[in-house]
């Protein structure tokens, strides 16, 4: 019994529920009064004992605060320290960006002399080269992104530029022509930095650019002639380059995707506070391991020529990191980094505000006479016929944090059908544009998915997607595709329909006007923008639309017919479709991967009034 009491006496009750200064001071005071009643009694605020209690409580309060703070910093929603927020953003894959530049289509006008046959003097047609700069009224500088080539022709051989007659003589002989052609411009300025690195090998070398709000790294070269490519991660050893499409479908798909290896590569990171961009280069040593994608460990083993036995092969693990698998870090060279920076809301300029030529780089491939070239050059004027858009101030830390949940959910891979559809529609438009896409399981191959796509031509008519577009799409989807998945890209079956109806109209109203109202309503209903692949047509929905028109008493007949081939110079698809056989429960179902289309609504929708 005595031993038990002694044991109980030695147990000192400690409480850990206090979290702030007052709570800890109260518990400490309680503890001191309980276990040191004969040692000290004065813990008043004026006494030294009270001061010691305050010290201990202050330390506990501080530790408690930092514990709470650390937990808060683990959650992107509550993190406040910029470094931690940046780590959270990086882990979630949210790109940290600075102020965004503004984009606008600028139209360039030139006056070109006519030749002896009163045609445009082709040799005098210039190319306004990319990186020419223009200034807006508010001082914002715009850079031309791609050449404006006035000699560029369409597939039918005519000039891509719009042409108007300029000056004429008194006898109506054309002296000059006015040509107009548009090019895309981006706001901001271009800067070039050169950085010399020593012969010492530094893996994952980092270079921070001087200007903040970098919108685009234009080029990175070194003095050895190597070209460095920007990649999402240093493990990406190829990049996709857009090249001019020279195939017959170049009208629809101006550029094709080309896969090129990128042994010299870098990733970019933006500091969340300064918005300065840092380039991180690869970790491989170009001098010693240029060809070793996977190094031979035995080459790093330390040999033991006089030893018969050994327990392990000693390997220097650091040497395994100096491979080219994460890109190459060049040494003893000078990097030349060209980039574009600047942006913001004030870069969104109004119409006709970009009219000042700041730096014009003009090239005459036809080598005209110097005086003609000078005259054409001096005639160049630019303007923006639309408001520039896209300029945004740098997103705040809170803005970036708000993106984390959505970015986390949308991982950069294709898993679901929705992922695939989303990826198809995000193909950059210069690689071709998919109008509609649908995904089906392949009935013959469980590991394969059928992707039905269809495009539109310049007249808005549905056409099978060009081969170059499909090729671009295949290359574009490959990095996001799971290794075991296969995607068969197929043309959607376009079913051209014609619709006719017979209605009874209120005799007191003008029949022609009533029918015209119905036709207008139906033309709007059958607009291809309202239809998707695999979407059925609901007959009762059409009936309802017709009945919504004032004056309609009853519908006597509604009928769909298919249109195939060429009818009166109107081109239809070759898909044969039996409407009656595919009508069930008042719905007309397309075949798998099929898309209904009333190609010529003015002709293919016909109404009749019963008397």
């Amino acid at each position, binding site marked *: 019994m005595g031993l038990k009491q002694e044991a109980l006496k030695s147990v000192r009750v400690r409480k850990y529920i206090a979290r702030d*200064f007052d709570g800890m001071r109260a518990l400490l005071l309680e503890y001191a009064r309980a276990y040191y009643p*004969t*040692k*000290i*009694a*004065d813990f*008043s*605020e*004026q*006494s*030294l*004992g009270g*001061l010691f209690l*305050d*010290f201990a409580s*202050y330390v506990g309060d501080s530790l408690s605060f930092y514990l709470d703070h650390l937990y808060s910093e683990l959650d992107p929603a509550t993190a406040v320290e910029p470094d931690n927020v940046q780590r959270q953003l990086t882990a979630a894959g949210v790109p940290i960006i600075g102020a965004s530049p503004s984009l606008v289509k600028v139209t360039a006008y030139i006056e070109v002399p006519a030749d002896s046959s009163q045609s445009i003097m082709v040799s005098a047609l210039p190319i306004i080269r990319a990186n020419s700069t223009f200034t807006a009224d508010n001082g914002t500088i715009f850079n031309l992104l791609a050449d404006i080539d006035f000699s560029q022709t369409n597939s039918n051989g005519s000039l891509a530029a719009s042409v108007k007659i300029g000056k004429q003589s008194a006898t109506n002989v054309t002296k000059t022509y006015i040509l107009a052609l548009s090019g895309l411009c981006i706001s901001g300025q271009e800067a070039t930095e050169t950085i010399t690195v020593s012969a010492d090998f530094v893996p994952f070398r980092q270079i921070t650019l001087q200007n903040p709000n970098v919108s685009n790294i234009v080029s990175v070269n070194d003095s050895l002639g190597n070209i460095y490519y920007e990649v999402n991660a240093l493990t990406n050893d190829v990049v996709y380059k857009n090249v001019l499409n020279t195939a017959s479908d170049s009208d629809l798909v101006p550029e094709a995707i080309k896969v090129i290896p990128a042994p010299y590569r870098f990733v970019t990171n933006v500091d969340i506070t300064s918005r300065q961009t840092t380039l991180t280069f690869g970790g491989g040593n170009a001098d010693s391991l240029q060809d070793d994608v996977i190094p031979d460990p035995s080459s790093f083993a330390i040999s033991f020529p006089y030893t018969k036995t050994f327990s392990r092969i000693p390997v220097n693990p650091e040497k395994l990191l100096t491979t080219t698998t994460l890109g190459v870090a060049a040494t003893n060279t000078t990097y030349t980094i060209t980039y574009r920076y600047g942006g913001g809301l004030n870069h969104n300029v109004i119409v006709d505000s970009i009219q000042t030529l700041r730096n014009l780089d003009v090239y005459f491939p036809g080598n005209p006479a110097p005086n003609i070239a000078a005259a054409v050059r001096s005639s160049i004027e630019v303007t923006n016929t639309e408001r520039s858009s896209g300029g945004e101030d740098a997103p705040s830390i809170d803005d970036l944090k708000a993106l984390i949940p959505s970015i986390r959910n949308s991982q950069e891979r294709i898993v679901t059908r929705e992922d695939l559809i989303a990826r198809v529609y995000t193909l950059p438009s210069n690689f071709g544009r998919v109008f509609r896409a649908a995904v089906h399981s392949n009935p013959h191959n469980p590991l394969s998915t059928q992707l039905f796509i269809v495009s539109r031509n310049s007249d808005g008519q549905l056409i099978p997607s060009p081969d170059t577009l499909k090729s671009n799409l295949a290359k574009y989807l490959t990095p996001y595709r799971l290794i075991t998945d296969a995607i068969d890209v197929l043309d959607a079956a376009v079913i051209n329909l014609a619709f006719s109806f017979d209605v009874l109209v209120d005799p007191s109203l003008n029949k022609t006007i009533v029918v015209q109202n119905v036709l207008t309503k139906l033309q709007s209903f059958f607009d291809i923008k309202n239809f998707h692949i695999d979407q059925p047509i609901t007959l009762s929905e059409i009936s309802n639309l017709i009945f919504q028109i004032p004056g309609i008493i009853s519908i006597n007949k509604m009928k769909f017919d298919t249109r195939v081939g060429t009818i009166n110079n109107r081109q239809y698809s070759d898909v044969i479709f039996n409407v009656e056989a595919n009508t069930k429960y008042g719905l007309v179902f397309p075949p798998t991967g099929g898309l209904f289309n009333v190609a010529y609504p003015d002709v293919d929708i016909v109404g009749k009034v019963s008397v």
Partner: protein
Amino acid sequence: MGQFSFKSVGTTQVQQTADTLAQTPMPVGIKTPLALGTDDLLAMNTDVATQMGDNLRNLILTNWGERLGFYAFGANLRPLMSDMSSQDDFDSKAIVQIKNTVQTWMPYIDLQSFDTSFDNVQNKNTAIVHLTITYDIPSLKVYGKSLQVTLYAM
């Protein structure tokens, strides 16, 4: 009637506790300036009145911002000392500040008198001010206690 030897006569528990308490007075608070104690680690005050006097001296010697957690703790006499030579009413200001801080932090102290003496002999450039304060602690029935603190002019 039995016969008992005095050797076997003990003491009651109450008496033993009383004897112990009488022999070793209960420590009340830490004595300042800090010094090593004989029974405990630090020298301790063993009566409440002395401890209060100790606290009062520390209160008067403390300047604002020196006490953790209580910025306005103390008489804050240092600013007065720093420009004492330019002040004719040092005494009256010091009295007011001491009175105010005692009323705030030790209201159970009843201040009675205040006296200053200046010592310019020890150091020609630094004046030494001796403050003598007499006070009562009515709740403890302690009257006429005095306290002297020494301040150095800067």
